[in-house]
Structures are given as structure tokens and as C-alpha cells.
């Protein structure tokens, strides 16, 4: 009897499985522009993944109410992958079948895994502020778009900022800079550029890896206490950031000498430490916390006041919420740009959206009209430059909120460009790819 029930349950489960799997694949819709949303609302990085996902989805919601993109309605679906690369790839495969417009993976590991797949499937991959730095070279990385900045941009500006604090880049000679990084492709990305800069200016670079998820950093900070580096760069994500700041506090390392990447400079990273994080600075991917900008007020009015907000109302305008919002905006604008060429009011395919992203031209007027005045600077992409902009500011935690503490910086193209070209060429050689010619670019 017991066995019969079991067999019955197993049979039902297997039927359910096949129907669930097949039905999702069959649901491909053609009339709507479908935005897949890869999120992590659970797991070790959920505190940071949540506001990003909420901002992303919040931006998509009011677009339909305003008539869609030239009349084309948007649909979206979330897929939870918990920052695990294999589950991220599964999500990609699942949502790809529904006519996905573009993917934003919010994980460097998933980006690496998808770079090869996106080429075959002809779906653009936006990695705004993460992913592979060399994918800026669009003539090799046809489908990757590290819009607004790569880790090499971040590393370059970090050194420029430290140089300025010291009173000039030439003063960096003989100084010691430690990089405390998440031991993953994400954390390792800036190392080549920092090594290049170390050679140029003669500072000593100390590499201190922290194992995933980053809650155990005692040894790292004991090393810092012993060696007393002049500056510490923090390349962390999620719980690693707050742990690092707490450890800095415990070892007495001045927070003013610490500079984080833009993924280590949001509210969840410092809130737990509160006043202890005062003076800690981080780079911003153009935007910081912008609670007073027009786009935030629009979001509050159009989404949250109607009770459609995805997350808590307080988080609207926070750093990672804004990043999700801007990421969604870039995707939507890519579709809009594609419609300019391939027909307004039509649903764009992945290939067409790729063209749109490659010819993105968001000047200050357009950005201001969308409510991004004071939040973002112009973005213009091209076939050879898939990044479009390399503006960075620095903001500092004053104990209760983030406030901008520097002027705009721009990454030094003289340093960046040769490295991007070299790394992209190496990738092209490994994969037997040909660079796109000028004619292919024009198509």
C-alpha cells in the first residue's frame, strides 16, 4: 500500500515536471518586448541583490502605463539564482526561450559563462559596471555591453583619486596600496590595471584575497595591521563589505584611507556599522544615492503611491536601487534606439536591440528629460566602444548617509585603451574570432 502511494506520487510528479518544463518553453510571446530579470533575493548577497532588483522592476512597471516603448508593451519575469553561476545559466536558458530582449546578469561569474552563449543565441548582455573589462572592445565582444564603466575604469579612477589625496600621482612613489578583494573573477578583474598603474607610478601593490562569502577576514586585517598600507582598496560585495569595515574598525585602520569599488559603496554595506563607517569612501558608477532627483520622485509618484512598489518605499533612491533603475533604463533606451532604425512600434529582436545598444546616444538633454538630471552624464556607445562613458565620482559615508566628496573623474584612456585592445585580441585569438571590420560595424 505504502509503495503504491509512492509510485503514484512519483508518476504524478514526473507528469507535472514534464508539463511544467514544456509549457514554459511553449509560452513564447511575440507581441510584447520581454525583459528577463535575473535576481538574487536570497542567499549571501540578498541584502544587496534586493534593492537592485526592486529598482530594475520598478522602472519597467510605469512604462506600460505610459504607452510602452512607442506603443510596444513590456513584460518581465524574475528568475532567482542566488548568485550561483550554474543556477544563473539555468535561468538564462529558461527565460531565453521566451524571446528575451537582453540579459543583465549582475554577477561576473554568470557574465563569463554567458559571454559565449549570448553570441550563439544573439542576445545582448548588458553588464553595467561589472563583467569583463575587455568587453569594452565591441569589435571583438559583439554582444557584451559593459555600459557606464568596467572594473578597469574603477581601478584607474581609484588610483587617480588616491593620487589626488596624496597631492599628485608622482607622490605615489614608494607608497603601499593594499587591494582587499573578493576571491572570484569579480575581485580579480582590477588586478591587471592596478599592476600597470603600480609600474607607472612606482607604488607597491599588496593583494589580499578574501574567500567567498567574505565573513572571515581576521587574517587579512591582521596583515593590514602589520604592514600598515597607506591606502586600502576594497573590492567586495554583499556581506564582505560590512565585515571589512567592522574589521577595519577593530584593527584601528582609518576608514578615511579606505576606498571601495561601486559595489562596496551602498547603504547595506555601511548601515550595520553606522557611525563606525564614517569617513569611508567608495566610487560611484556615475550615480550615488539620489533621493532628491526627479526620477526618484517620479518613481514614488507613479509606482509607490499607487501601491505597486516592489520593495519598501524607504529604499527608493538608495544607491543600489538607483543602479537597478539605471540598468533597466539603459536596456529600455537600447530598445527605443533600435526602434528608430527598425521601425517604431515593433517588437525588437535581440539582434536589433544589439544595434540599438551599440548606437546609444543619451545626451544630457535626453537624460534630463527622463529625470536623470544631476544623476548621470551623457552616454554614447559605438561599435568599438561598448562602454559609452567612463565618468566616476567618489562619495563618502557621513555616519548616516552617502554624500559626494569629489569632482567627476574620467578613466585615463591612455592607460585603459591599450590594455583593453590587448586583452580583447588575446580573447579573439583564443576563440579564433575575427575583429569586426568598419563595414561590418556599419551594418
Amino acid at each position, binding site marked *: 500500500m505504502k509503495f503504491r502511494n509512492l509510485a503514484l506520487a512519483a508518476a504524478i510528479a514526473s507528469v507535472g515536471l514534464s508539463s511544467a518544463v514544456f509549457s514554459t*518553453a511553449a509560452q513564447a510571446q511575440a507581441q510584447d518586448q520581454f525583459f528577463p530579470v535575473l535576481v538574487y533575493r*536570497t542567499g549571501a548577497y540578498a541584502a544587496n541583490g*534586493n534593492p537592485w532588483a526592486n529598482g530594475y522592476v520598478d522602472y519597467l512597471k510605469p512604462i506600460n502605463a505610459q504607452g510602452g516603448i512607442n506603443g510596444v508593451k513590456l513584460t518581465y519575469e524574475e528568475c532567482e539564482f542566488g548568485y550561483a553561476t550554474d543556477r544563473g*545559466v*539555468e535561468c538564462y536558458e529558461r527565460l*531565453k526561450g521566451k524571446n528575451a530582449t537582453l540579459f543583465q546578469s549582475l554577477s561576473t561569474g554568470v557574465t*563569463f*559563462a554567458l559571454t*559565449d552563449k549570448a553570441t550563439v543565441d544573439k542576445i545582448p548582455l548588458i553588464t553595467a559596471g561589472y563583467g569583463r573589462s575587455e568587453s569594452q572592445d565591441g569589435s571583438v565582444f559583439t554582444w557584451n555591453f559593459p555600459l557606464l564603466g568596467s572594473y578597469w575604469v574603477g581601478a584607474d579612477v581609484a588610483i587617480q583619486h588616491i593620487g589626488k589625496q596624496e597631492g599628485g600621482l608622482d607622490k605615489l612613489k614608494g607608497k603601499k596600496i593594499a587591494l582587499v578583494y573578493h576571491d572570484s573573477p569579480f575581485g580579480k578583474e582590477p588586478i591587471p590595471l592596478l599592476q600597470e598603474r603600480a609600474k607607472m607610478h612606482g607604488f607597491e601593490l599588496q593583494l589580499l*584575497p578574501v574567500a567567498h562569502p567574505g565573513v572571515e577576514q581576521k587574517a587579512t586585517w591582521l596583515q593590514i595591521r602589520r604592514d600598515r598600507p597607506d591606502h586600502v582598496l576594497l573590492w567586495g560585495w554583499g556581506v564582505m563589505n560590512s565585515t571589512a569595515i567592522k574589521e577595519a574598525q577593530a584593527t584601528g585602520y582609518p576608514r578615511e584611507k579606505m576606498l571601495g569599488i561601486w559595489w562596496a559603496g551602498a547603504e547595506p554595506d555601511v548601515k550595520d556599522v553606522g557611525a563606525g563607517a564614517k569617513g569611508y569612501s567608495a566610487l560611484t558608477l556615475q550615480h550615488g544615492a539620489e533621493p532628491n532627483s526627479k526620477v526618484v520622485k517620479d518613481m514614488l509618484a507613479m509606482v509607490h503611491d499607487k501601491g505597486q512598489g516592489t520593495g519598501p518605499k524607504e529604499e527608493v533612491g538608495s544607491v543600489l536601487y538607483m543602479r537597478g533603475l539605471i540598468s533597466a533604463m539603459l536596456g529600455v533606451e537600447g530598445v527605443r534606439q533600435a526602434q528608430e532604425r527598425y521601425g517604431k512600434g515593433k517588437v525588437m529582436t535581440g539582434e536589433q536591440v544589439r544595434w540599438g545598444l551599440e548606437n546609444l546616444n543619451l545626451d544630457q538633454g535626453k537624460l534630463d528629460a527622463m529625470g536623470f538630471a544631476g544623476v548621470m552624464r551623457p552616454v554614447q556607445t559605438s561599435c568599438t566602444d561598448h562602454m559609452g562613458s567612463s565618468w566616476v565620482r567618489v562619495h563618502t559615508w557621513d555616519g548616516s548617509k552617502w554624500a559626494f566628496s569629489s569632482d567627476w573623474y574620467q578613466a585615463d584612456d591612455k592607460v585603459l585603451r591599450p590594455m583593453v585592445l590587448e586583452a580583447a585580441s588575446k580573447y579573439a585569438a583564443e576563440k579564433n574570432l575575427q575583429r569586426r571590420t568598419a563595414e561590418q560595424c556599419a551594418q
Partner: protein
Amino acid sequence: MFYRENGQFKTSYAADQQIFTIAQDKWFVWGLIAFAALAVPMLADEYMFRAILIPFLVLSLAALGVNLLVGYCGQITLGAGAFMAIGAYAAYNFMVRIDGMPLVLAMLLGGVSAAAFGILFGIPSLRVRGLYLAVATLAAQFLCDWAFLRIGWFTNHSSSGSVSVAKLEMLGWVIDSPTEKYLFCLAFVIAFAFIAKNLTRAAIGRQWMAIRDMDVAAEVIGIRPMFAKLSAFAVSSFFVGVAGALWGFVHLGSWEPAAFSVDRSFQLLFMVIIGGMGSIMGSFFGAAFIVILPIFLNQFLPLLGSLVGVTVSTAGISHAELIIFGSLIIFFLIVEPHGLARLWSIAKQKLRLWPFPH
């Protein structure tokens, strides 16, 4: 009624030594292989191949390898993820550093490298047993995690520590579509499953099982424990290494050491325990349970929710998935501590009497 061996007489030693002595079993397995090789490529879509079937096949192969060691030889290992990593990185290095290296040869050499390390890390098994051995094999895991993250040579000095493979090609056959990748993996899995089945029926497999059941007694009747244990480590690591190469080359395409973390080792051990220790079939059941069930739950729960008019949040689904998955593990372990394979053989027993039990 249908499943009984009445009237099937074995008239030769060869017939008596078949893998499947009952004709129905033989037909079933041939039918299954034919279904997997001929019908599935026509039925399944890209999502099924790339997200479900290929990971399932590759992890089945890895679970099979672990089962040879844990289930047949009784040596608990927590280093399976490390041996997968060694297989993948060794195959990658053979491909990158030797011009014109054939793909299959590189993968098999990856397996051989893993086997060599398997023997090395199997040496403690001559002195320590059970949980202590499990802890000793963990050393392999940590060493590999460290080596592939820190030593640039293994990753061909990739700045991010992530490696990726170029086009897969075998004798002019370019393996790029999901169907081709699936068939490529399937061929490996079928070949290795037959090898494993025959190994376990041969002298060496009997030695492993003797060691598992009572190593002192085995030694008394003339089995060399060193040879038996180390050969089990070598063969198991070879299987796991080839699976690792397939995982990296065919499934992921580009990977970082985190793809073969300690979580993977635990996952493989759980597959063996849930699927059934000392059973070839059990490895497949275990892999199916661990690979497919979470994905199924993740897609089934929102459907279930929409049926009763509830929209479940993304995070809610994810939490529910873990809760249900965890309770199912406990449920199956209570109902059948010998694993899903045991349920399978009970089913066969019942089928013999069906439809007239008594």
C-alpha cells in the same frame, strides 16, 4: 504478469554471466538507451537539453564515479569536487598547450590526471577510515581550490582566474548545437556506465565489496587492501575527472574554481546516499533527484500558486524550494534508507507478482 523470468532457461555459462539475466531487463535497458539516443533529441527543446539533460548526464557520471568509491569500496570521500576540477583544468591545459590535441583524448587525459591525484589522496585510506577519511579527503578539496585560484599557470595566466574553451570539435564534427552536446555526453555516460557495471561484476569489484564489508576478513582471504583501496580511488577519480572535463567543456564552456567548490563534493556524496549506495542505477536516480527536483520545484510552485490564485514572490519560491527539497530528502531517507535504487528493486519484486500478489 509481464515481468517474470519463467521459461527463460540459461543453457550456457555465457548466458548465465550476462549483465541482465532477465530478458525483460535487457529489453528495458536497450529501450531506454534507444529512447535517450533517438527519441529524446526529437522531443526535447533547447532548454531541456542545456539546463536539465546535460547537467543531469554529467553529474550522473560524476555520481557514478563517487558511487564506485563510496558505495562499492566503502571509502567515504569529500574530495569529488576537487577531482572534477582536476579533470577539467587538466583537460583544458592539454587542449591549450598541445597543438592539435583531440578533444576526447584531452578529456580522457584529464581523467587520468584526476586518477593520479586520486591515488595520491587515497593513501590516507590505508590508515584511517570512515569519517576520518572523509576529513582527509577534504584536504584535496581545499588544496585544489587554492591551486586553481592562485597558480596562474593552470589557468593559462587568465587575469580573472576564469578559463574558457574554444570550439568543441571531434574528427571534423563540430559539437555546438545543444542536441550534439547532449549526444556527446550521452555517449560518454553510456560507455562509462557499462564499464562501471562490468568492473563491479569482475574480480576487482568483488575485492572492493569485500573491503567494504569487512576489511580484516578480506585481508585474511588474500585480498590486498592497498591494491583494492587505491584502485578504487583511481577508477573513481578517473570517472569523476572525465565528468569534470565534460562539465567544464560541454556544460559551462567557461568556468572558475567556484564551479567545483566543496558544495559540489557534498552534492555528489548526497546523490550517492539518496540514490543508493552500491548501485549503478542509484547514481542516476540520485543525480536526477538533486539536479532536476530543485529546478522543477522552482517552476512548479509559481504554477501551483497561480492555480489557487496566489502570486508567490521570487524570494518566497526560492525559500519554499529549499524547504520542500530538504523535507523530501528526509522523507526518502526515512522511507527508504537504502536509497531510491532500493525502491526501484522493490518495485521490480512487486511487479513479478503483479497483478495477483497473493
